[in-house]
């Protein structure tokens, strides 16, 4: 955490309200996001208990598994989930616009532009917390290798038709969420804590209720009081007033409410199976329906507060912060490319994502994430003066006023303009000899070179007074502007700062270059396991006795 962020947290403690940690919104928010609030069964991997899901805040779909260890009921849940999520994805997959992409021509080996489709918008999934993102991945993994009866008539327990496809999509969302700055799948706690600093630790910020309590405390209450209630307040039966955002449930809920309800359901089901005639069966079916309805009510009571909290978070983000504009849009376009790419892979009939990536794919993913991280950091700083302030404090950028511009030219046959610009700044950038610095000029980075501090050039003769850390804390530094001034002998109008201009230069680059190109997977060196060979379709997870109850 930078000192500026720490200070914001301390101010939040002092004022009893969260303080801004950003002046603009750094994540794209879709006009019609799909909110997903899942609950899971404690101790079981990938055994959902229920979920609220949908795009309409007033009418979420409630999905419930009355006996989470029953495979058929689990499949029914997943099929219902697919019926909500896949149509939402499809509406985005169908609307496309034309775009161009650079591809290597297989015959000539040259880079050529090809016309391709790009989805005009992408779906956006929003879960309450980071654990929800992990759960999306887990659900994806549990479904994508399943076989339907169509794919494999021999499979012992075929999955409902669209479940494997949903698994592939959820896997894609989960994988994309690991790319810094992406917005296909967002955790509400992450987005909120990116934009507000609360008076609690980052660990406690993982609690959606407490986080919202700091950002928008109820009338007459401080954030700290409201957050404490959100974390701990229980009713007379010992149940949390604000249930955890999931997917894990509160043990007190499991033991006191859910377990007895599931027992009743199991008993009703056994009784129904043992019914001897139609009349008796009708009666017992009524019991079973009642037991099921009870579990549905329980699941709804634990997910609805979280559902409302997520939408409240969306309201806050939309109403308090303007979207950062070009850079957020640019990152969202990358998300659209990622979405379109996966859509194409599914349409082309490619197999589901493997359990483990091969060496080249894994290395590519890692380097992409590193590049996106650097890009995100640079873009957020350029979009947001508050983020830039952190970089300035760290000596990675400086802002100041131009005090002098002296025209100079490069040596050589065709002299080009290389004006010397003197900037007065109170910041303390860590500038090495001939360090490159950049400023944003009409959205493009303009490079300059650090020449030296004013007094070392000995121009005004009062050496030391304006040097680094001078009496008033300001320094004068001289930069040589290097590019973006046009082709002529005289720089284009507006391309060189003028005396009196406020300028902000960064020591980091604004645009990220890709790293060295990795070999094709078929050319993986033996040090990394050699070529992965022919892809064999991955087998579905074996089914064991324990799955069936």
């Amino acid at each position, binding site marked *: *955490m*930078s*000192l*500026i962020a*720490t*200070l*914001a*947290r*301390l*101010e939040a*403690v*002092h004022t009893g309200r969260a303080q*801004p940690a950003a*002046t603009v919104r750094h994540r794209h928010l879709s006009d019609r996001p799909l909110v997903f609030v899942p609950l899971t*069964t*404690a*101790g*079981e*991997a*990938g055994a959902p208990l229920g979920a609220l899901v949908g795009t309409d805040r007033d009418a979420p779909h409630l999905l419930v598994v009355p006996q989470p260890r029953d495979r058929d009921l689990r499949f029914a849940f997943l099929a219902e989930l697919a019926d909500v999520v896949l149509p939402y994805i499809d509406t985005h997959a169908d609307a496309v616009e034309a775009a161009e992409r650079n591809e290597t021509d297989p015959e000539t080996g040259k880079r050529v532009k090809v016309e391709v489709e790009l989805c005009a918008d992408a779906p956006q999934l929003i879960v309450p917390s980071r654990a929800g993102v992990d759960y999306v991945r*887990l659900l994806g*993994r*549990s479904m994508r290798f399943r076989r339907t009866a169509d794919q494999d008539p021999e499979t012992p327990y075929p999955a409902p038709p669209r479940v494997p496809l949903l698994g592939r999509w959820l896997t894609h969302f989960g994988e994309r969420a690991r790319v810094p700055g992406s917005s296909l799948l967002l955790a509400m706690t992450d987005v909120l804590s990116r934009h507000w600093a609360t*008076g*609690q*630790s*980052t*660990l*406690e910020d993982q609690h959606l209720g407490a986080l919202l309590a700091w950002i928008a405390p109820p009338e007459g209450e401080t954030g*700290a009081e409201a957050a404490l209630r959100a974390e*701990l307040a229980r009713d007379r039966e010992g149940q949390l007033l604000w249930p955890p955002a999931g997917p894990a*449930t*509160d*043990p*007190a809920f*499991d*033991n006191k409410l859910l*377990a007895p309800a599931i027992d009743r359901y199991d008993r009703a089901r056994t009784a129904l199976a043992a019914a001897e005639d139609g009349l008796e069966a009708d009666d017992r079916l009524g019991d079973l329906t009642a037991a099921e309805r009870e579990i549905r009510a329980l699941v709804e009571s634990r997910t609805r507060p979280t559902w409302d909290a997520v939408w409240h978070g969306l309201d806050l983000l939309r109403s308090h912060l303007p979207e950062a504009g070009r850079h957020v849009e640019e990152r969202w376009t990358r998300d659209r490319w990622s979405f379109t790419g996966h859509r194409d892979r599914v349409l082309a009939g490619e197999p589901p994502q493997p*359990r*483990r990536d091969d060496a080249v794919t894994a290395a590519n993913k890692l380097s992409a994430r590193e590049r996106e991280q650097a890009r995100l950091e640079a873009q957020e700083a350029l979009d*947001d*003066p*508050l983020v*830039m*302030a*952190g970089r*300035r*404090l760290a000596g990675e950028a400086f802002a100041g006023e131009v005090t002098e511009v002296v025209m100079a030219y490069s040596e050589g046959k065709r002299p080009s303009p290389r004006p010397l610009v003197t900037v007065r700044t109170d910041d303390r950038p860590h500038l090495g000899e001939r360090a490159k610095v950049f400023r944003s000029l009409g959205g493009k980075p303009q490079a300059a070179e650090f020449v030296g501090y004013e007094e070392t050039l000995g121009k005004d003769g009062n050496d030391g007074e304006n040097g680094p850390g001078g009496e008033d*804390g300001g320094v004068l530094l001289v930069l040589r502007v290097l590019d973006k001034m046009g082709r002529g002998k005289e720089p284009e109008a507006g391309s060189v700062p003028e005396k009196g201009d406020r300028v902000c230069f960064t020591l980091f680059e604004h645009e990220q270059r890709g790293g060295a190109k990795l070999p094709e997977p078929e050319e993986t060196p033996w040090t990394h396991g050699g070529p992965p060979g022919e892809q064999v379709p991955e087998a579905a*997870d*074996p*089914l*064991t006795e*324990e*799955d069936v109850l």
Partner: protein
Amino acid sequence: MPLPRTRGTALRHRLAELRGPDVPAKALDARALAALAANPGCKRRAILDGAGVNKAALANALGSPSVFGQSQFAFTRGNTFEAKVKADGGAELLRLVHEKLDRTAEPPAHARVPELTATGPEGRTARTALALREATEARGEWTLFDHPMLALDVAGSPAFLEPDAVVVHPDGSWTVVEIKSFPMLDGSADPAKVGAAARQAAVYVLALERIAARLASDSAPAPRVRHRVLLVCPKDFSNLPTASAVDVRKQRAVTARQLARLTRIEDIADTLPDGTCFSPDLPAADLTTAVESVPATYAPECLSACELAFHCRARSRASGAVTSLGRSVRAELGGLTTVEDVLSAARGETGDPDDPAVAALRRAARLRAEALGVEVAACR
């Protein structure tokens, strides 16, 4: 005539007094061990754990109940899984040990499973040590210890530990086995949970090493305690066991070092006023005074490791300590430890401008105000 009290019994008496009359001592469980590693400098936790105080009950009595609890679903599933792993005389478990740790040894066709029941933790500890000696001497055979009891000296008082299983190999070496019910998905498990399991297993390794050292004689060296433990988890989404060898050398070294430098419990006990008692039956006000008489070092990490964390957090916040926002926050603020100190230093009201921490704070405050477009409150 009363027997002369040795130092050891004196401490035991003192700790029993702290616990309160007729309150049984609570064994050091996995969570306490994790807390030991997470926050070794906390005297409050040290004395409460050392005296065997039930911190969950204490937290309830203080009015800041802990939020730890186990869902019965997780509990049932964990027990079913452990039973399955150990079923059939531990055949599956030994197969995994052989496959993952000791492939050159004879495959375990059958194994000895010694009876370890005895009265009281001391009795079970002695029984375990005896059986370990026998098993080590019986070369060429596999032996499975199901829930042995080990004792480890923690800050001057013995803590009893109960690993899921210990296996003695045919070559006489020992392996700790940890059985957990979180899944190993495509060969990898949640790193945080694996880390916690490794820290726990490292404590068992240390305890076993103490026993092994006592078995050393002129004729035979001490048996080797393997530093690779076996972590057994359900495979993917099934209930089938799969296992992975986990190297715990690092965790073992860290824990050993922390145990060695743990503030000795008797030293802490000596600083307590006479009559201090942590019995949950006492009124909340008395308990608060008692608990406040031992200093705590609260950090947000405590919330996931210590039952008393909410009490300590409330105290830490009330005193305005910056550590309640995280240890890293505390680290970058130099000598300024309270929220008010930091803010007034940032505003330029207090603090020495030559102190680098203060100077950095003022620059940060100025830059933040400038970015937010607010009037700069302080002179520079």
